């Protein structure tokens, strides 16, 4: 047999060819990019990260000033991304589980409402929902000057202001000072992400519960547990093993979808990177930062998933 007829040899040849092709493409693209940059005198590199950013950010977890450096600006953006993601994940889990469990209710009204919710919010693009929520927030809420507090809470075009341990929000100038302030941008983004993702989580929870053998439920009811107890103590815990992996995926999706904030003016990572891109002209670098951050987040999630799967697999025995 000639050596190229040998399956093993051919396999290695294929792989070598694929590798060479990919490498050649990368070299070609990198060469083009460098050539373009050199010819046109475009500057590149990550050195800009340590220079002062010079632009302000409307909200930030760690006191960011416009005199701070670009990397601090990126950090502020990442902080805002994580803020909306963490709060969103908590809220959407609660809402999604309620909706999923609601699909098993004896009451047809609850079943119907849960089903309608899922169908409506799943079948309209998230971006459109975000734009609508934001429009409703800024159009329909009252102006700060006309607003009256309700139990010390202000809900105005400047956002939601809540009292915080005796620190009461008060009107001051154009806005509201004191208490905890949530901007309408954050609010609209949170609302949109929570409501959209919950429709997916509801389906995951529903099919998770449906996958628990019916005998389990019947046995629990026969033991005299109530329907609520059966769901809480028997069905949900068993469904969890099926639910967790796709649920983690949804958490990741929510985090990635928070990048749509650029459309509603919430200063998260992508929005900050976009501004930096325009100030410095370092397009490749800024988009690389966005991708690197999201990749890290998703790798961390995958690592968690792997750990969880190993753990639950052992438990099964």
């Amino acid at each position, binding site marked *: 047999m000639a050596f190229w007829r040998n399956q093993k040899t051919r396999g290695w040849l294929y792989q070598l060819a694929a590798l060479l092709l990919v490498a050649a493409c*990368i070299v070609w693209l990198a060469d083009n990019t460098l050539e373009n940059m050199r010819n046109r005198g*475009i500057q590149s590199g990550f050195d800009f990260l340590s220079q002062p950013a010079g632009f*302000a950010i*409307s909200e930030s977890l760690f006191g960011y000033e416009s005199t701070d450096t670009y990397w601090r600006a990126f950090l502020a953006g990442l902080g805002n991304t994580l803020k909306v993601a963490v709060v969103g994940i908590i809220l959407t889990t609660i809402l999604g589980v309620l909706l999923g469990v609601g699909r098993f209710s004896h009451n047809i009204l609850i079943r119907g409402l849960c089903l309608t919710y899922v169908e409506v919010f799943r079948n309209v693009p998230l971006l459109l929902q975000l734009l609508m929520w934001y429009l409703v927030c800024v159009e329909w809420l009252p102006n700060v000057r006309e607003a009256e507090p309700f139990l010390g809470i202000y809900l105005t075009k400047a956002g939601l202001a809540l009292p915080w341990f005796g620190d009461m929000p008060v009107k001051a100038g154009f806005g509201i000072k004191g208490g905890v302030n949530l901007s309408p*941008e954050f609010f609209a983004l949170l609302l949109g992400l929570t409501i959209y993702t919950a429709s997916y989580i509801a389906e995951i929870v529903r099919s998770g519960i449906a996958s628990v053998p019916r005998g389990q439920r019947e046995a629990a009811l026969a033991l005299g547990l109530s329907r609520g107890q059966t769901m809480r103590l028997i069905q949900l815990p068993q469904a969890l093993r099926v639910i967790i992996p796709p649920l983690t995926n949804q958490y990741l999706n929510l985090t990635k979808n928070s990048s749509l904030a650029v*459309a509603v003016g919430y200063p998260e990572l992508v*929005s900050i990177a976009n501004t930096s891109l325009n100030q410095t002209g370092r397009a490749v670098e800024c988009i690389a930062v966005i991708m690197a951050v999201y990749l890290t987040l998703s790798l961390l999630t995958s690592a968690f998933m792997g750990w969880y799967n190993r753990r639950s697999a052992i438990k099964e025995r």
Partner: protein
Amino acid sequence: MLKNTLSRTIASVALCATAVVSLPAHAGKTLDTIKSRDQLVCGVNVALAGFSSTDSEGKWSGMDVDYCKALAASILGDANKVKYVPLNAQQRFTALQSGEIDILSRNTTWTLTRDASLGANFVGVMYYDGQGFMVKKELKIASAKELNGATVCTQSGTTTEKNLSDFARANKLDIKPLVFEKNEAATGAYQSGRCQAYTTDASGLAAERSISKTPDEHMILPEIISKEPLGPLVRRGDDEFFAISKWVLNALLEGEEYGLTQANLDEKKSSDDPNIQRILGTSENMGTLLGLDKEWAYRALKATGNYGEIFERNVGKDSPLKLERGLNQPWNKGGIMYAPPIR
């Protein structure tokens, strides 16, 4: 990333082959390319009233657009041989750098950073502008210095964010910027009352006010917080095309200085003024020095009128924007528009 780029290339090559639209490649000499494809490719703003906007039939108009027309008329003899590529703020520089467009005529501010690090050359100044603020009259504000604690809407991808924060710092004001990806979103948020003020170049403010339902309810504050000389850009490394772009702009300015209008141009061909003779190519042939023919400036002026006409038609008294000439008057009428002589 590896496979990504690979498939990207393969897919794009394959799709190109199935032919959608792709422009002929430019081969270094921009002028030759423009002539061989018989079309000028001009990057313009997606929509900015008075500078570049489309009507319901897709026809482009505006100051930035008129400059492209004049350039096309000068090079190709036909002001309609322009392909307009609408670009947003982020796309514009890469589009120019990569050769997707021949010239970027998109109200772009001339700054050191852009001139030195983007691989582009500014042709000149088409419009001297400055950043200002627009507020609703009901707020009863007379000065931008009263904006302490206010939220200000603006579009990302421009020089405005930095100017705004410089202004706030210099005047010890606490101003919250609200930055949107699209200008429509920024103005929408301002209109709805989410922001107390909207900031951009003063011409942009006027444009925005002109298309507002109730222009009288808005006022533009007196403070101009920055210098924004707006002009077209070409790629570095092609001095010939750079010169042509520069001198077509100068010809439009000279046209105003010597009173050459679209209407009287043919009449003026018999003028005795040596300056006019040189501009219109009736005596010396200045065009060959640029690689064009002697009627290069005549065609540009015939296509769009002189700078003054372009200004008044698009943003001045004959337009809804009603902008004052101000700094954009010729130097001998109190402005700073001064073109080097055509001789």
